[in-house]
């Protein structure tokens, strides 16, 4: 670990300690990274986090199960639907509520669309960090189409609070299926467009290949999950390993990388978007009829006990550990945030690289500070 206070004599020829963030264009929020540099080479880093800490876990202990549900949307706010899904499923597991199939399917479709919006935001900002300005706008153009679906469905675009414990609050709107299909039809062409700009671009290759390498065993050791883990060659996706919602009935592949570098993570996420489209299309094609909410008591009062339930959020394993004491309020809610754990590997990934690589690696880990700090 390194000294945290930048010294006043920064012209000291040996080491330069600079402060990256919390106000910095490419730390994706209020992340502060203290870099110890030799010229431009990174000797060590230390992440200072917590600027966005809102005490979500404490709030949970003072709200009812239902009142807490909207709060989870504010953690990973670019993937609010996933957060909501994880929380609702955790409570359902605790209470052993059976969710009707239609609700499961709608949940799956929306969650996968949300995965795409999250990855689009990642792609745009990641490319921006590396200096390609234009993809950001293309990504936002497509993201808008998906956000419109969310808006039509539940009225909100970002912090959706789309699901309820036990199922859904709203039935799908007229034209839901068509709109999802339209996105599934146009989006692959747009993805090809991004790939045309980046995938074989020499500069992109030079900037991302062999940058921020994380080997498979290191990745497991550091507890990273999601695309970062898969890019290191570990074929593990909770959607397949421990299926939840309607994933068991869906047909999709898990893309993996080989080298665990920034380029592989880029490829994995690009492929994941295509797979998400597949899932979304299957979801709307097979959407069963039926009720949208299971047998939920009027007052949510789970029995004494505890569960840990995790889902594959766009950033990795999002886990909820809920302890119930039999009252209407959770006794303890712990959120296992993927960004927080993945960010821990930053130091390992950037040592010996240059400043320019730090922003590339922060981008490739795909953190959301709302989730890191909670």
């Amino acid at each position: 670990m390194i000294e945290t206070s930048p010294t006043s004599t920064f012209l000291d020829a040996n080491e330069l300690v600079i402060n990256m963030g919390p106000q910095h264009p490419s730390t994706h929020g209020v992340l502060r990274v203290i870099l110890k540099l030799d010229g431009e080479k990174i000797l060590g880093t230390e992440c200072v986090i917590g600027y966005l800490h809102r005490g979500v876990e404490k709030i949970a202990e003072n709200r009812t199960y239902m009142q807490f549900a909207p709060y989870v949307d504010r953690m990973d706010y670019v993937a609010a639907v996933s957060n909501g899904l994880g929380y609702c499923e955790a409570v359902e597991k605790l209470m052993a509520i059976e969710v009707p199939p239609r609700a499961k399917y709608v949940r799956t479709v929306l969650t996968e669309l949300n995965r795409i919006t999250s990855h689009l935001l990642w792609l745009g900002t990641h490319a921006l960090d590396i200096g390609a300005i234009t993809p950001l706008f293309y990504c936002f153009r497509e993201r808008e189409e998906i956000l419109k679906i969310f808006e039509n469905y539940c009225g909100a675009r970002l912090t959706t609070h789309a699901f309820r414990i036990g199922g859904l609050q709203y039935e799908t709107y007229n034209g839901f299926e068509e709109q999802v299909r339209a996105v599934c039809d146009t989006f692959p062409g747009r993805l090809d467009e991004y790939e045309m700009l980046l995938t074989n671009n020499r500069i992109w290759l030079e900037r991302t290949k062999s940058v921020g390498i994380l080997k498979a065993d290191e990745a497991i050791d550091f507890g990273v999950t999601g695309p970062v883990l898969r890019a290191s060659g570990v074929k593990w996706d909770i959607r397949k390993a421990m299926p939840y919602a309607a994933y068991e009935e869906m047909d999709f592949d898990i893309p993996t990388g080989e080298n665990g570098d920034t380029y592989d993570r880029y490829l994995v996420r690009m492929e994941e978007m295509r797979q998400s489209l597949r899932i979304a299309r299957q979801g709307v094609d097979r959407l069963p009829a039926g009720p949208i909410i299971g047998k939920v008591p009027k007052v949510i009062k789970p029995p004494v006990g505890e569960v840990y339930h995790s889902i594959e959020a766009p950033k990795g394993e999002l886990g909820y550990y809920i302890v119930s004491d039999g009252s209407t309020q959770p006794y303890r809610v712990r959120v296992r945030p993927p960004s927080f754990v993945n960010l821990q590997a930053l130091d390992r990934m950037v040592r010996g690289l240059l400043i320019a690589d730090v922003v590339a690696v922060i981008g490739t880990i795909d953190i959301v500070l709302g989730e890191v700090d909670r």
Partner: protein
Amino acid sequence: MADEQKKEEGAGAPAAPAGGHANPAAPAAPAMEPWDSEVVQSLRKSFPGVDLEAFSFRGQNLIIVPRESILPVAHFFKSELKFDFLSDLTAADYPQKEKRFEVVYQLYSFKRNERVRLKVPVGETESLESVVPVWITADWMEREVYDMFGIHFDHHPNLKRILLPDEWQGFPLRKDYGILQQDVKWVQENLHIQSGQ
């Protein structure tokens, strides 16, 4: 519906639940069933003198491990039982219990595709061994537990606050720390405002 819950909730005061998860008066609780499997057996065989309790609830398995033996047990889980992935490490506070805190480890095995939860009761003045030598990922998680509960981990490489400012007083996720409570002195000194609320 919301109104009913409001009534139940009271005035938003800090919840003061009676007895943690061991409260026997809960309605129709499916009790924790004892759990026995190959994992538990091999564990009991390797640690004969250690008092291990294994339960299962809603299909999720948990083992209660005494504080002193967490590091060898963690090693055993990682190297022998192939639980090579530490998903999560957290804690919970039960002020009524004899040992106030419970540190909770969520383990996962890629090979078995299986999860298991380890729980370690820790008293307020006690500390326990850090598992960073076993799983590097425990580094920040233990720091967070220290930050939020004040549980001390021995031989942790860099045990200091992570989410809250370094100088903050108090441990917010303890049950006796009210939701409106804060380190007023710190807020006044550093943010130059009377109160964060």
